[in-house]
């Protein structure tokens, strides 16, 4: 789910693992702390640059058409860089599951490279602007939250934003993504892009059109799970409610 907020923290004191008590500090090596602080500042800055570029574009042109083209290089750079977050989980400096982070980063990479970049006719759809705005606000909130947490000076507003903005941003982002994929379908079917047909010597076939349909369908079970997970985290963090979690 591309616009979902990952519960794990990029090295902040709030542990991503539900089972850990909120506020329990993890002992991070000095080097890891320095690196993660740098990484999160860089990502906050990157998405801020994107936000400003988008605002300037709209103020100058008054339309969303051409928006993607104007910011695509910066978007691709910073969104692709997020692959590092999977590495952070792998080497253990961030307490989130590799699988969860992997799924979330992959879905963003998928949306940027395998849909928006590759299927040019849909780049001027409104839905693209929709998910771009949602992602931008989400990421600025998220990365600044991690940065401040690492530096041990988390302003209440940032914490509030991280656990409240998603309520609107998450469904909006999902809507933008789904509408974009939907708009892309006819072009994918006509061009047969990214597809492999029989016969071939490896006896396999792949139809990107059906793959996109299945991806869209997968949002149905995945989105509510992630959304309610964030809602539970919100209740725990902001209101200190004791939630009896269903054990897996």
């Amino acid at each position, binding site marked *: 789910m591309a616009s979902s907020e990952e519960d794990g923290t990029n090295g902040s004191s709030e542990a991503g693992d539900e089972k850990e008590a909120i506020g329990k500090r993890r002992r991070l090596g000095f080097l890891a702390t320095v690196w993660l602080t740098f990484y999160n500042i860089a990502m906050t800055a990157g998405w801020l640059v994107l936000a400003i570029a988008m605002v300037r574009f709209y103020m100058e042109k008054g339309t969303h058409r051409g928006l993607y083209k104007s910011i695509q290089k910066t978007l691709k750079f910073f969104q692709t860089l997020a692959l590092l977050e999977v590495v952070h989980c792998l080497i253990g400096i961030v307490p989130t599951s590799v699988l969860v982070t992997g799924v979330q980063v992959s879905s963003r990479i998928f949306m940027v490279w395998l849909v928006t970049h590759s299927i040019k006719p849909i780049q001027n759809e409104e839905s693209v602007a929709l998910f771009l705005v949602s992602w931008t606000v989400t990421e600025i909130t998220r990365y600044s939250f991690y940065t401040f947490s690492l530096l041990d000076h988390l302003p209440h507003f940032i914490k509030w934003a991280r656990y409240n903005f998603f309520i609107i941003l998450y469904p909006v982002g999902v809507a933008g993504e789904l509408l974009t994929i939907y708009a892309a379908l006819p072009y994918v079917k006509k061009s047969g892009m990214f597809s492999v047909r*029989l*016969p071939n*010597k*490896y*006896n*396999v*076939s792949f139809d990107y059109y059906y793959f996109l349909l299945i991806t869209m369908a997968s949002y149905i079970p995945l989105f509510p799970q992630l959304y309610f997970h964030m809602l539970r985290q919100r209740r725990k963090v902001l209101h200190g409610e004791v939630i*009896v979690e269903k054990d897996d």
Partner: protein
Amino acid sequence: MKHYEVEILDAKTREKLCFLDKVEPQATIAEIKTLFTKTHPQWYPARQSLRLDPKGKSLKDEDVLQKLPVGTTATLFFRDLGAQISWVTVFLTEYAGPLFIYLLFYFRVPFIYGHKYDFTSSRHTVVHLACLCHSFHYVKRLLETLFVHRFSHGTMPLRNIFKNCTYYWGFAAWMAYYINHPLYTPPTYGSQQVKLALTIFVICQLGNFSIHMALRDLRPAGSKTRKIPYPTKNPFTWLFLLVSCPNYTYEVGSWIGFAIMTQCVPVALFSLVGFTQMTIWAKGKHRSYLREFRDYPPLRMPIIPFLL
């Protein structure tokens, strides 16, 4: 003889669920579970996890009350493991599926391929051979489940059957679709490739079976004892010198053989996923061997000799 009192509390809510008085000191956890079921019939023993600490490890069925670090009034914490299903049931279901599903594709049952292909037969020998190998593999697994394996646990959570069947049945259908497709392309190096692959497959199937038999002979019927497995007179078991779980090694080998035989990417992917899962299991098993036995042979690796 002093009797014990046992109180059972819910591990999450600490609510008092059951109080048992006049419990024999030599009572086992299994017997206590049976007593608990009497007051809460919806929680049959297989779905009970009793522990001394709410967040601690489950006590074993064989543990004796007297030997536990408790006073004469013992407090046990209960966790519901959820609906359970027997291992045998799960294995039979998850293996019968692929056997049956593959044959649907092999016989080109209607609505899979175009109507002009209904009930036709492939003209490639390797396709018939593949059907034999695949079917043999799953028949072997079914028979082993019924007659060979000795399970440590009776049950597993019910949701596992859905997860496992999706995996086995899904991959079986995916593989079978391509191998039995009218547009199937036989292996690039022809019968040489097929012969080599078949040899690998047969050797690994024999190897896998040999290991299953050796493991069965390690453990007497009805017992749950664990011993270090060692090579026997059967040469296939000599792999025990180098790995802890040669059954998994041979299983991966079988599927690699099948992948080479059919030259089919979905088969290769299935082998890869299986290999990943079996490596995780092998590493776990290897670790518990090392923990349990001081004199465990140091040369052994979990699944791949010298490497992994």
